[in-house]
């Protein structure tokens, strides 16, 4: 009942682990695959090892988390060892970040060789100078990166978009026009938190990305808007912590969804819980499959 597909990729369960969450090592990704997730998206991997920003890089706040990890990762070469452990256990989506079409392509080729079921282009991280959102808010740049990666690999190419723009629809259209296989929306919302007692920003990077319940309605709106302009699959992400949140994304037009922050607030069990409660909802309301729910809010 919960089976869905993102293009040609079949997922036994519609929920995936979002990039950046329990996905830096092989064994932790295997654990998440066994927790009821249909796929795990890796931490965003770059060309070289990166320690990320110095602590503090994270804090709780009303309605969610703010983080500025700064893309910590061991680099694409060493990450092969983690993929070797994880990829044979299920769908691993290789998230990658770079600063040019060539760098993205080279990383995608490695991910494909490592056994990734798809790649997810991080064109949306708000916390890294020269990467992510800084290049991902220009539709022509997004298009050139997607088309370069498309011609370099044969696995599906997904693109994760930022909500920190007034033109997310244009970004999604650029992805589709460049031959991209799917759009993932949304990444975190650029935000800030200041300590009144110290009179200073708390994160070492000053700014960070807001995630969790506070951004869910932004994500649902973004998916709904994107659905009106593209036909390629959409994967919804942002503030999902229960079945109702997931259902909203599906009804807005997503065929699958990702969960990040709720792994912290609800625990790893969040996938199992959402799977069983979503299934119960579908039975009660006469939805025989996930695809029957997708986009119903547009009808």
């Amino acid at each position, binding site marked *: 009942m919960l089976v869905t597909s993102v293009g040609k990729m079949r997922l036994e369960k519609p929920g995936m682990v979002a990039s*950046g*969450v*329990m*996905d*830096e*090592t092989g*064994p*932790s990704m*295997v*654990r998440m695959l066994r927790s009821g997730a249909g796929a795990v998206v890796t*931490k965003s991997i770059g060309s070289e*090892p*990166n*320690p*990320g920003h*110095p*602590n*503090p*890089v*994270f*804090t*709780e*706040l009303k309605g969610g*988390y703010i*983080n500025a*990890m700064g893309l*910590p*990762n*061991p*680099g694409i070469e*060493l990450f092969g060892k983690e993929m070797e452990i994880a990829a044979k256990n299920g769908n691993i989506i290789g998230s990658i970040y770079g600063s040019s079409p060539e760098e993205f392509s080279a990383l995608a080729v490695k991910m494909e060789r490592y056994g990734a079921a798809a790649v997810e282009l991080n064109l949306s991280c708000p916390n890294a100078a020269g990467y992510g959102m800084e290049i991902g808010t220009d539709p022509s740049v997004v298009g050139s990166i997607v088309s370069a990666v498309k011609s370099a690999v044969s696995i599906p190419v997904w693109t994760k978009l930022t909500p920190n723009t007034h033109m997310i629809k244009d970004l999604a259209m650029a992805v589709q026009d460049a031959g991209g296989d799917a759009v993932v929306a949304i990444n975190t919302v650029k935000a800030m938190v200041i*300590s*009144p*007692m*110290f009179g*200073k920003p*708390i994160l*070492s990077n000053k700014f960070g990305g807001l995630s969790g319940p506070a951004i869910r309605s932004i994500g649902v709106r973004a998916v709904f808007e994107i659905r009106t302009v593209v036909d390629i699959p959409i994967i919804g992400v942002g503030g999902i912590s229960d079945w109702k949140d997931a259902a909203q994304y599906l009804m807005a037009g997503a065929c699958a969804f990702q969960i*990040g*922050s709720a*792994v*912290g607030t609800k*625990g790893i069990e969040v996938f199992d819980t959402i799977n069983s409660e979503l299934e119960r909802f579908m039975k009660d309301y006469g939805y025989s499959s996930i695809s029957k729910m997708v986009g119903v809010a547009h009808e």
Partner: protein
Amino acid sequence: MSDSVRIVGILDNAHDTKTFEFQWDEKASPGQFIMVWVPGMEEIPMSLSKTDRIKSITVKKIGKDTQKLHELSLGDPIRIRGPYGKGFDLRKSKNMLLVGGGVGTAAIIPAVKETGADTIIAARTDRDIIMDEVAGRYAKNLWIATDDGSRGFHGNAVQLMREKASENKYEMVLACGPEIMQYHLYNACVELGMDCQLSLERHMKCGAGVCGCCVMDDLRVCKDGPVLTKEQISKIKDFGVSKRDECGRIVKLG
């Protein structure tokens, strides 16, 4: 949750170790930790050395971040978040031995207070022993070990633990200290047929079980730990062998 609190007490524990007390109403249990930050330092995880309404952290000066904390005075604010993680399960056994090594001793003190169990405190030398006074007030028996024999038993925590375990029938060992100590402690527990719960440490970023940077195999030290059971530890390949650096690269333990 996160909070800013003021230092209401500072105790000198040893030449390089201080305890900072603050009032914080969050409920915390022995073995849990918090993330601590003031401007000018990197935020770091610290075990709670007091878990009542007045809570405390015990800081050994080992680098620039702990140096920054040592500069704090009474009334200064610190930013904390937590409490995080799974602490010691004190109801699992009635016949326990608590072992603290070096500054790790601070993390077992709340458990000593709550259980009154027999306790070993170990350190390199007499001047590195901390919190023996408070432990002595609550523990049924308190034994001290120093590597150089300048006080108490001449030898390390594990050697003294083996000696005490042969004299008394302990079911369970609870410990916190350097990983090398805990690694040998674990092996001794396996050999002697005792259960154990060990408080472990890895490089931490979010502290809240989200980012996965502090994993040992597939366990998050911040959320599934920091106190792990003997059964959990038996499955971890990294224990005593390797850790992950800030980039997530595997680094062999020295």
